């Protein structure tokens, strides 16, 4: 499983794992579901229309073709739905007592794993913008670190961003205390 591949340091503890808010994936899947039922909706509307002999003959004579088309369409939509679900589930924030590991599954062969040490964290900003994010409590977390290569990272659609901010802040303070204590004993 993934946790073995991440290779946590000796004594490193996972404090929390966070995925994007359920509303984010629900919205995407809802859009796909609407697209998926579109042919069925069109057929239902056509079936309720006043009797048109030519149309009736066309439709009744082409049932295998229509079934073929609808089944193929639903298959493609199902595959797209599972693509969305896979990308949602494999995106992950792992907050440990030493660092934050951000896993960003951008595509099937495009995966970015970033690791940010807590003692190098400088600033964490939380943004909750809009009616639905405010009511459902999700937003964007943006963190700034003192790293040479990448000084900022952010993720949108995070659930309870203030709670995550508090968790990170608490972990940062604890980590700095530990490192400060180690420094004084040297």
């Amino acid at each position, binding site marked *: 499983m993934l946790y073995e591949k991440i290779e946590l340091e000796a004594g490193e503890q996972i404090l929390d*794992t966070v995925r994007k808010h359920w509303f984010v994936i629900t919205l995407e899947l809802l859009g796909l579901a609407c697209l998926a039922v579109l042919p069925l909706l069109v057929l239902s509307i056509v079936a309720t229309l006043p009797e048109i002999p030519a149309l009736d003959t066309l439709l009744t004579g082409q049932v295998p*073709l229509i079934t073929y088309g609808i*089944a*193929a369409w639903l*298959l493609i939509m*199902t595959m797209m739905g599972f*693509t969305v679900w896979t990308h949602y589930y494999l995106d992950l924030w792992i907050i440990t007592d030493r660092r934050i590991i951000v*896993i960003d599954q951008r595509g099937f062969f495009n995966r970015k794993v970033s690791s940010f040490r807590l003692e190098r964290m400088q600033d964490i900003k939380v943004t909750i913008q809009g009616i639905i994010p405010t009511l459902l409590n999700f937003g964007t977390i943006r963190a700034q670190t003192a790293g040479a290569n990448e000084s900022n990272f952010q993720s949108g659609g995070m659930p309870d961003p203030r709670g995550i901010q508090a968790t990170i802040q608490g972990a940062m303070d604890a980590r700095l205390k530990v490192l400060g204590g180690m420094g004084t004993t040297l």
Partner: protein
Amino acid sequence: MSYTGDLTTLLTLGFYVLAIFYVIFSVILYYHWMQYAVDARVRNLSLAVYFLATIPLLGLVGVMIFVA
């Protein structure tokens, strides 16, 4: 060749293309879940639902071509 024959050939070709694409996609999806999932329960459930949903649909497309 008649119009019906051309259409049947086209639809048969479409089925084969769809089947090949489905197999490739399924292998990629399976690999990603086995490699990167953190929860075995969610992984197994997701893969089970995927195959239970898609195999009958692919089968239906095949039946419409080769049987109906």
